[in-house]
């Protein structure tokens, strides 16, 4: 249902005229009336403020009081107006502005050297005074980049058949960020429609240079091809790098064989299996033609108890791994196929530059009405994008509670409560604790330094 359809019947937005069940069913969809209520009663300003302050809102002597106000926010308004370089001195400024403007999307940018709303005042001095100084390391993974390996939907759509691709991405990237790079304050967020966002918030992540960000993004990249060359994944070495090897054995192979092989019916038609045969570097065609031969004989072995995808995959694996064929490049071919169908595809540009914007958590996606809620990486397999709170659910739940005196945490009695509690306990609290420790140690280091400098 589009926004237009909804707004016709939305004079009394608490009541859906078509659904006769109860008086408090709210129509699906998204409109600015709903959004006003959401921003008025549910959006967790305090949590966003606490997060974006990284402890600098406290009283500690090393607190940087200007920190939050140098952060860029940007708003997309209903009438397609796009406001960049918004900044706020306090939580209430942020809150008031959001309530007043009611943006359909809030983006978060970097912390700049100076207040971004005053950047023009510094522009004359030439020396690039206005420049990003801190930014979370971010990742954006979008299902539409997987269109060549999913057959259930394409483009902006997702369903439970293809969502496992996102689950894989969360698992692979999250594990590496923690075990390889040593980061610990990592927030995963559902993008509201067809993908996931990741925010790495450790101090050392926020201070990475563009070059270092690009290096991490490249570390995660295995697709060497592009739209104009066939091969998308190609491993030439005698072994996989430990990171890839771990991802392969712990996540990719399992998901491929247990889920995607069946749910995407990867070998079910000629067109589909030809795509895979195409990935086998086989100059004299001996392997591919043998496999093709087997698969074209219309199931002579009518042993159709076994799924045809599983059968064909096993045949292919046996062929490639039997060692009969000593063709160069075959060694890694099974791995290459699995990687092609499962390995995360990042939007590299987003991660490489400090000044890229990313949608704030807890925004509502204007097309789906779904809230961009955090995802628990330890339980990401349970996450169901079709079951996240939507604007209309939330309003219904508010209505059920009926008119109450204004309470502090209205979200507590909605399905958003679980998400906000998770955000606090698993992400925000540990983050703020370590910010405090970092401040403490930098303060001590300063004290030490000033002592030393007296010693002459």
């Amino acid at each position, binding site marked *: 249902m589009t926004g237009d359809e909804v707004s016709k019947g939305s004079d009394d937005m608490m009541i859906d005229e078509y659904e006769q069940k109860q008086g408090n069913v709210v129509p699906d969809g998204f409109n600015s009336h709903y959004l006003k209520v959401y921003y008025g009663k549910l959006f967790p300003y305090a949590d966003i403020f606490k997060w974006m302050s990284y402890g600098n809102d406290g009283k500690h002597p090393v607190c940087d009081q200007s920190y939050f106000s140098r952060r860029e926010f940007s708003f997309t308004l209903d009438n397609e107006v796009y406001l960049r370089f918004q900044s706020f001195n306090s939580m209430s400024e942020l809150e008031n502005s959001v309530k007043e403007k009611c943006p359909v999307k809030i983006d978060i940018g970097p912390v700049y050297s100076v207040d971004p709303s005053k950047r023009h005042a510094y522009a004359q001095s030439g020396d690039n005074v206005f420049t990003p100084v801190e930014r979370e390391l971010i990742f954006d993974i979008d299902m539409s980049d997987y269109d060549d390996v999913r057959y259930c939907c394409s483009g902006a759509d997702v369903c439970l058949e293809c969502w496992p691709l996102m689950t894989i991405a969360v698992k692979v990237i999250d594990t590496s960020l923690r075990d390889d790079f040593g980061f610990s304050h990592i927030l995963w967020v559902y993008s509201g429609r067809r993908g996931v966002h990741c925010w790495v918030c450790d101090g050392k992540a926020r201070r990475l240079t563009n070059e270092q960000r690009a290096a991490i993004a490249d570390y995660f990249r295995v697709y060497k091809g592009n739209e104009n060359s066939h091969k998308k994944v190609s491993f030439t070495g*005698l072994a996989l790098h430990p990171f890839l090897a771990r991802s392969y054995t712990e996540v990719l192979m399992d998901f491929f064989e247990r889920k995607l092989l069946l749910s995407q019916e990867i070998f079910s038609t000629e067109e589909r299996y030809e795509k895979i045969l195409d990935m086998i570097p086989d100059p004299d065609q001996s392997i591919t033609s043998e496999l093709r031969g087997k698969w074209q004989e219309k199931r002579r072995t009518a042993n159709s108890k076994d799924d045809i995808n599983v059968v064909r995959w096993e045949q292919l694996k046996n062929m490639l791994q039997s060692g009969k064929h000593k063709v160069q490049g075959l060694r890694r071919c099974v791995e290459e196929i699995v990687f092609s169908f499962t390995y995360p595809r990042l939007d590299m540009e987003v991660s490489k530059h400090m000044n890229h914007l990313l949608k704030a958590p807890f925004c509502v996606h204007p097309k789906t009405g779904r809230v961009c809620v955090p995802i628990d990486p330890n339980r990401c397999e349970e996450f169901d994008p079709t079951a996240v709170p939507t604007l209309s659910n939330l309003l219904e739940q508010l209505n059920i509670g009926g008119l109450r005196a204004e309470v502090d945490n209205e979200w507590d009695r909605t399905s958003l409560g679980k998400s906000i509690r998770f955000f606090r306990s698993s992400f925000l609290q540990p983050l703020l604790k370590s910010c405090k420790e970092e401040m403490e140690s930098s303060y001590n280091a300063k004290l030490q330094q000033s002592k030393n400098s007296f010693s002459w």
Partner: protein
Amino acid sequence: MEPVRSQRKLIVNDVVSTLPLYRSAPALEVRLEEFELFALDRLRVLKGISDALSRGRKPEEMEKLAIDLWKTNMRHPQASEVINKDKISHFVLRLVYCRTEDLRKWFLSMETALFRYRFKREKQEAQRALMAEFDLPYKAVSSPEFESVKEKLVLVSRSLGQSSPTADDIFFKVPFEEVPELVAGRRVFISKGHAYIAMSQVVSLVATQFRSHLSKALILTNRKWTTTIAEQEKDRLTPIVEALSSSYLGPDYSQPKEFAQISLKDIDDVAKSSFPLCMRHLFEKLREDHHLKHGGRMQLGLFLKGVGLKLDDALAFWKAEFSRKVGAERFDKEYSYGIRHNYGREGKRTDYTPYSCQKIISSTPGVGDHHGCPYRNFSEENLRAALNKMGVTGRAVGDVMDKVRNRHYQLACTLTFEAVHGSSCDAGINHPNQYFSDSQKIMQSKNQSAA
């Protein structure tokens, strides 16, 4: 030019390296003509490296080439003067190349590349001495620790097609941030934020340090130049520096020159006749999909700016395509900013010169991307088809493919140019905008002779 460091720890186990880190300017009396001559000699080396890189030479070739250039140009009749020449020439060029961001960038990459090749030629002891001079506090990984990660280190070597490390090999454990290029290529094992780098990879660590020191120093030098040196030295050094900088810079193509302005109605014809393959491909994809991802928008957008498409026309051009896919509103909201940005109307103005071949060739297009250099990124089949479409056929295609197989992408592009235009291109193709302007020149002279 900057404070002399208090202690120099050049000597470790009596090993002396002749590779200076240029931490402090030489306190020598320099004769003016030497000043200029030394600088020119060094510039020849840096230019040579730059040209070879943009021709897509392989790393192994590069090292030899750089060292040869060095040996030919940086000799001095008196052996004792060699190191002074090295230092003086470096510091003179700092003055020349400190003054704009583009110049600094170029100088920084070429000096770092040079440093890297020279460092690799040093003996292991000398390398460790240089590490110490950089104050890099990393100790070699102990043997119990080595044993605990050995399995992973073996995997890394095997994934790179190298022989497995043994207990005799020295490894260092460094924060991953210090070796970005090794991280990017997955050339190291990383655990809990630390990269295990082999002795043979130390060059990457040291080069990163070298680069970041030099980068900061160049900014300082620039400040000093504008505040004091230029004025103080206006009768002596300043004219030489000015001359050096103006005579040795390639054109940057950020301002269209000869063929100022192409208009929207001609753009399809011009694209067919005068765009190099990389731009033609982007252009066609844009017309076909009504969309290009970020990398493609940048590469084509800046090229069109260099070709002389004015901002208003550029906006109209992109909007006409994008709005068919995403709608006019979303275009205004999300994409027009980027285009204005390229033209320096919004945001801060840096690095908006059209990309050179070198930059395009080294870019890494991913899924859904169409930017980059087709000679490098296309499969053979696709490249053949694309060449045929440009009117290149028969033997010429084979010649182009040969160059591609040897990874001489710009030579492949040059051959294409020659086949398409039926005239030679001796200078070779270094820049898509150069391809364009050379092509236009030929077309115009043909038109004139036909008229």
